[in-house]
């Protein structure tokens, strides 16, 4: 009998430990694919594109899908999102799902996927232009049910939609390379010429402006040419989109600045050129660079000067 009380306590403690009340902070995990939709479409035509959204969290979520227009981007291709912004052409977008509508919450089970079947219908009378939008899928949150002092975090994931409405496949636009400038390395500018050390790597920045009405791509080359325009170095440009009336920084295929490693054999006048050739626009810009072993020459002259100084010094008399 004397063991009953401790035994009861132990069993109670064990049950409390074995079956604890699960307390876990809610988390969020969502993926959306594809991250980009680029469409060239004629007025009066329709297309359908499936966006797959996956709930990566371990609990069911209520989500809301909506389409937000944008017209501006930064120089890296990030749209300037204004959640209040609207446009008359948003009516071109709709979801073909039977149970999901734009702007209305829908549920998605834990670790499950849902397909958003987006239908884009361009009326025959649509203005020939580009329209840019972002499909946003947000967690549906409501402070009403919040029973603690704090912040309720909601999350939104997006996918960009770039549409060109035109009867031609590649309506012409106007691309202009705004700058092509060395940024790192050993160089100086004199007049219209750059003078660079021929044994120091040199990197360049460049940007392109689309002042036309239609989107364009940045397909092309960065090249260094020697005498007779003979290329001594070629590098591809990362093909990205430049929406109308925006600028973009041009990058190499690694997403970095263009770079060139000269050597002692690459001396004299060279030309650095950015060349864009796309289906609807071409652009080119170049700068003249004179490569010379300035550092090495300076070192030699300094060494010779020092040597001269040493020799000129009077010898100590014995």
């Amino acid at each position: 009998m004397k063991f009953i009380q401790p035994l009861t306590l132990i069993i109670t403690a064990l049950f409390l430990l074995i079956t604890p009340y699960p307390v876990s902070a809610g988390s969020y995990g969502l993926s959306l694919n594809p991250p980009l939709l680029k469409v060239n479409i004629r007025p009066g035509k329709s297309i359908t594109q499936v966006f797959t959204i996956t709930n990566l969290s371990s609990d069911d979520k209520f989500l809301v899908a909506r389409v937000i227009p944008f017209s501006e981007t930064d120089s890296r291709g990030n749209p300037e999102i204004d959640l209040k912004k609207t446009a008359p052409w948003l009516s071109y977008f709709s979801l073909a799902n039977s149970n999901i509508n734009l702007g209305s919450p829908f549920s998605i089970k834990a670790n499950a996927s849902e397909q958003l079947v987006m239908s884009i219908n361009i009326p025959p009378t649509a203005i020939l232009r580009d329209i840019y939008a972002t499909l946003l899928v947000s967690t549906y949150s409501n402070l009403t049910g919040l029973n603690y002092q704090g912040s309720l975090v909601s999350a939104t994931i997006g996918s960009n939609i770039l549409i060109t409405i035109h009867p031609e496949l590649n309506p012409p636009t106007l691309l202009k390379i705004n700058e092509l400038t060395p940024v790192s390395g050993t160089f100086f500018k004199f007049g219209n010429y750059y003078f660079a050390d021929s044994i120091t790597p040199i990197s360049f920045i460049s940007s392109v402006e689309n002042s036309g009405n239609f989107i364009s791509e940045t397909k092309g080359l960065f090249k260094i040419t020697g005498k007779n325009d003979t290329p001594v170095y070629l590098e591809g440009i990362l093909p990205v989109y430049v929406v109308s009336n925006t600028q973009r920084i041009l990058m190499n295929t690694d997403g970095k600045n263009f770079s060139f490693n000269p050597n002692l054999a690459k001396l004299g006048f060279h030309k650095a050129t950015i060349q864009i050739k796309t289906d609807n626009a071409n652009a080119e810009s170049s700068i003249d660079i004179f490569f010379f072993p300035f550092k090495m020459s300076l070192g030699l002259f300094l060494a010779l000067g020092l040597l001269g100084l040493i020799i000129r010094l009077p010898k100590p008399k014995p």
Partner: protein
Amino acid sequence: MFGYSRSHQAQSLTVSLFERPSIQSISNHLSSNLNITNKLTQKTPYLYFFKHFRLILVILLFCLFTLSFHQPAYADTLVSPSFEIDMSTINITGGNKSSASYKLSDTVGQTIQGRFDSAGYIVKAGFQYIHSITPFTFTISNLDLNYGNLVPGTPSLLTNILTITTGSAFGYTVRAIEDHPLRLSNALTTIPDTSCDLASACTQTDATVWADNGRYGFGYNIQGSDVDVSDFVDNTYFRPFPIQDTDSPAVVMSKAGIATASAATVTYKVNVSGSQAAGVYQNNIQYIAIPSF
């Protein structure tokens, strides 16, 4: 194939640059000069150096300028079966190509004119230059930030982690915005958004130090991958959240390139004064993750 090996002796004889008579004559010439120089050296030692210094200088300059204006050696062949340089003519090929002098990446074109004419549309989904099937993914470790009972002058701190994988996108931004400052349900009393320490006020896009517990408000710090470390220098730097319908969302994470599980920790800080009205203060914070294009 184009030659044959010779004995070492034969090779030496063949490639030797030495020509005895020339050397002899030069040596004689130098010898005669040497005698003069020796005489000069004995009288004025620095004149000897300057005479040779000029000679060395002339030789160096001659060598450098010869190198500068040399004829280019066309060692790098531009045209080869594995390179396609004129991008405008690439239609049914793609991928990365490289050599010591070349690094090109082209994309498979979808420019079939007939298809556009007949169907009336061309669709390109995803990024042609990234061959990845990983989707654009955004996770947040904790959606419920419970600050508990707030003690005046004692900041309450909470954290959560934002994680991004760009997948087939090349770059992204994560922006943040709040619906309103922390406020009571009557919508009248708020805990104002922080302006950080008095010495240097912070703004929605400019973080500064908030270490003074006598400064009250609500703000955030972020540390980790793809965070602007020139703004959020360390974990004492805070910003207030932009307010929905008034401000634009502020960028908290961004990258121009592929990100694989880039994670950053957001620290939320609330500090109230003794005169802050009692009650339950709440708000909603929204993070927006959008891929670049």
